[in-house]
């Protein structure tokens, strides 16, 4: 292979890529928070709700976990306008990712809820804990410890998943890399720098989440 690497053409654009990376983080964070809210409600509904509610939540989870996220966002972006709802690129991506995350997080949290054993609750009751105390001292610490690692994984996956926004004209990290590549044709250089930025982002996010998990929730997580 007689390819000469020319990173010189890419370095001046690193701030441009970094600004894109910031947008990736923003989308991932907002979609995760929204997804967590949906997931908590969904999991609570599935664990404690009636059969109709449970079936409704099941349908939502099945739909969003069994279709590609790209198709879901395509639907929001290109099909909804025909029904009179025009979402901006950013809104379509954010809503799509939130709904998708909500479905996965419903399942993850339901598993967390179910990991609290009946005997634990009985023990708490025997010790005279009030309902509020049961939630505060028994359910939450247990659930948080079990749930934190899979939630962190989901967060990292979602950070990488924001790259889909590029297809809808959102200028996050991948979108900016696409644009840069189409102008410079330095594909190897552009995408290796982009990959490096993703690695840096996810590496730090993993480390921070692991520290949080161990300190706050005594979760079993390896730092680095």
């Amino acid at each position, binding site marked *: 292979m007689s390819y000469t690497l020319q990173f010189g053409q890419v370095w001046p654009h690193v701030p441009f890529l970094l600004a894109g990376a910031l947008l990736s983080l923003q989308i991932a964070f907002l979609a995760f928070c929204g997804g967590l809210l949906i997931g908590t409600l969904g999991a609570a509904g599935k664990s404690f709700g009636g059969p109709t509610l449970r079936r409704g939540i099941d349908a939502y989870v099945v739909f969003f976990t069994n279709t590609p996220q790209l198709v879901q966002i395509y639907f929001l972006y*290109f099909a909804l*306008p025909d029904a009179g709802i*025009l979402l*901006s*690129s950013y809104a379509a991506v954010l809503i799509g990712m939130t709904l998708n995350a909500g479905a996965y997080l419903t399942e993850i949290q339901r598993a967390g809820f179910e990991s609290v054993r009946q005997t634990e609750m009985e023990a708490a009751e025997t010790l005279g804990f009030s309902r509020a105390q049961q939630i505060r001292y028994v359910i939450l610490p247990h659930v948080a410890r079990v749930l934190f690692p899979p939630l962190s994984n989901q967060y990292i996956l979602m950070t990488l998943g924001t790259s889909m926004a590029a*297809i*809808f*004209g959102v200028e996050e990290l991948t*979108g900016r890399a*696409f*644009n840069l590549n*189409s*102008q410079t044709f330095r594909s190897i250089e552009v995408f290796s720098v982009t990959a490096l930025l993703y690695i840096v982002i996810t590496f730090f996010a993993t480390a921070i989440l692991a520290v949080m998990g161990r300190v706050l929730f005594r979760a079993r997580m390896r730092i680095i």
Partner: protein
Amino acid sequence: MLKTLISATVAAVVAVAGFAGTTVARPLEEIIKSGTLRVGVNPTLPPLAKFDEKNQIVGFDVDYATEIAKTLGVKLEVVQVGSPDRIPFVVSGKIDFVMGAMTRNPERAKVIDFTLPVHTEVFGILTTDAKPYKDWKELDNESVTLVQVRGTTPIKFIADNLPKAKVTQLDNYPDAVRALAQGRGDAMLDVVDFVGEHMNKHKDVKWKVLTEKPVDVYYCGLGVAKGSTGLKDWLNVAIFELARRGKTDAMWEKWFGIKMLYPTGVGPAF
């Protein structure tokens, strides 16, 4: 190994000699005598030319060349050419003329001769009736969002000439035109003729092309070898006749789905 090398060298020399041996373009009478007109067509530029489902090259250029050959009373032989080799094909006389959006410009005209323009291409603004724009320069404004296709030449043009406009880049023409149709942007800057088939898919949208003040108009003729005056003069007459009888416009509408946006202005004198 040595034997292979020698035979390869011989083959290369023969190829070069063969190439050098046919540098003379065929004059008009020789084309008529041979009964075949050889036309270079670039199938990477739909709808000017593309491969159909039977792997045959079809398109505006093929129809036009067929019409030219019919007028001359000979058979047509379509020769596939690419963007980098199409001019060498003409210069070496492997084809009698070349098509494929051959924009006439002084640089090319140093190497090959051009006939009258067959068609134009408008590098201009596609927008909708609801937008107030009259001139492409009005688009240099923060409130303007342009919808463009990633990796196309207008991107650089916009960065240089309309730096204030926002640009949404999508990956292909159907998506970009649909985004414009749905009101996700105000305008698109491109060679508008080639977007016709995508525009037609959104029938309820009132499209508007700013043809009074386009960014640029390209005049595309047929490219012939230098000095083949007899052939060129005959082609000019044929081009005028096809234009005058409305055949050019009909073929254009058949393949592009829209009328030619900018008239070639071909007249009886040349």
